């Protein structure tokens, strides 16, 4: 499996949100060095290109290149079907679903409030980033 699958990129303009997501992922056994952060879609794009990261947990609304723009650039324009892309957001899902309609994007959207819940991060990873789980199990 490509080494990029053992890494995950958290994209959010709020450091607080990135920190919580990182803590959850670390708690599930993802090594800290395999967790990358970006404060907007443009920084995220540069990291994906430079580091070959294939798992992306991305905020929907950001001032510089939002989640849908980043997903469109990677998955539609560049046809990077090897990338696992999950949007997370505090925006009502119906609004995001409407924004996704017509983009050609088929990506999961999960509410950001899930970050505050006492869910099992391991279950979360296996559900949304299965490739990351399989690389973890070999480490």
């Amino acid at each position, binding site marked *: 499996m490509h080494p990029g699958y053992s890494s995950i990129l958290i994209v959010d303009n709020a450091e607080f949100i990135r*920190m919580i997501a990182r*803590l959850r992922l670390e708690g599930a056994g993802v090594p800290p060095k395999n967790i990358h952060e970006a404060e907007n879609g443009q920084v995220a794009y540069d990291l994906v290109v430079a580091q070959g990261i294939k798992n992306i947990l991305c905020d929907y*609304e950001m001032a510089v290149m939002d989640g849908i723009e980043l997903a469109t650039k990677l998955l539609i324009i560049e046809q990077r079907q090897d990338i696992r892309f999950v949007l997370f957001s*505090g925006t009502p899902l119906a609004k995001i679903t409407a924004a996704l309609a017509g983009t050609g994007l088929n990506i999961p959207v999960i509410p950001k*409030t899930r970050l505050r*819940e006492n*869910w099992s991060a391991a*279950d979360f990873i*296996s*559900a949304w980033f299965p490739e990351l789980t399989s690389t973890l199990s070999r480490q």
Partner: protein
Amino acid sequence: MVSPLAENDAQKAVRIMVVEDVAFNLEILAAILAERGWQAVTATSGEAALEILAADCDFQIILMDIGLPGIDGLETMRRIKEKPVCRGIPVIALTAESAAERKRFLAAGFDGYAEKNFDPEQLFTAIETHLAPAGDTRHTPEPAVMPPSPLLDLDFEALLVTYGDEMLLCRIAKAFFADTNTELQRLGEAMTSGDRTVILACCHSLRGSAAIFTAKKLARVSKELEDCIRQGNKNGIESAWHKVVAAHESLREIVTRRLSMTWNTQ
């Protein structure tokens, strides 16, 4: 907040049949159920669902799309309810239909419905209503009722349970205030200049962070300001802005007081 059911090992054995013809939707639903440790058995048509049930009825719930090819969800549900060995399994309609249509589904025999918007919380609520060990399992799922707000604008105990210890919570709280201070400053500048787009973006960001930090009051007044801006309610804007600033300041006082032992040592 995790459901008591989610903490029960017995729940790991919960099997849910998902009947949905769109493969992508099936994948999403199965992934959402997997987050709770529930096992999804999928069928892409009513016929396939009935075939599975003919050999295996060991399901706690059936999630049924309505607009299926071949026999539709309504008819599939009827045929399931005709089978004595299956009729005890609650069948929940997955629907994006109007309230009137939902009533029709319930009248036709569905045990409940869930919005077909893949919101995990709504789905879990709809399912857990029927998984509840006590009480009537054949009633319409009711909307989740939020517990009364605590006197303090922070569910501190819930945060501690989620993040484990005060040191960690302190780090998170500091990051929260670093972010929200920046947002408040940006919001203040936008309020002065009248930049509606930035005001709305800041309110949205504040509300989202506050919700995750369980700061209900800050989330509520941020929403109030956002609503006033959207509605052009000039009288309400100034008042709501002051409420946001006050709620943020009050929250900071509560948090620093509660975390006083660790706040100054990090």
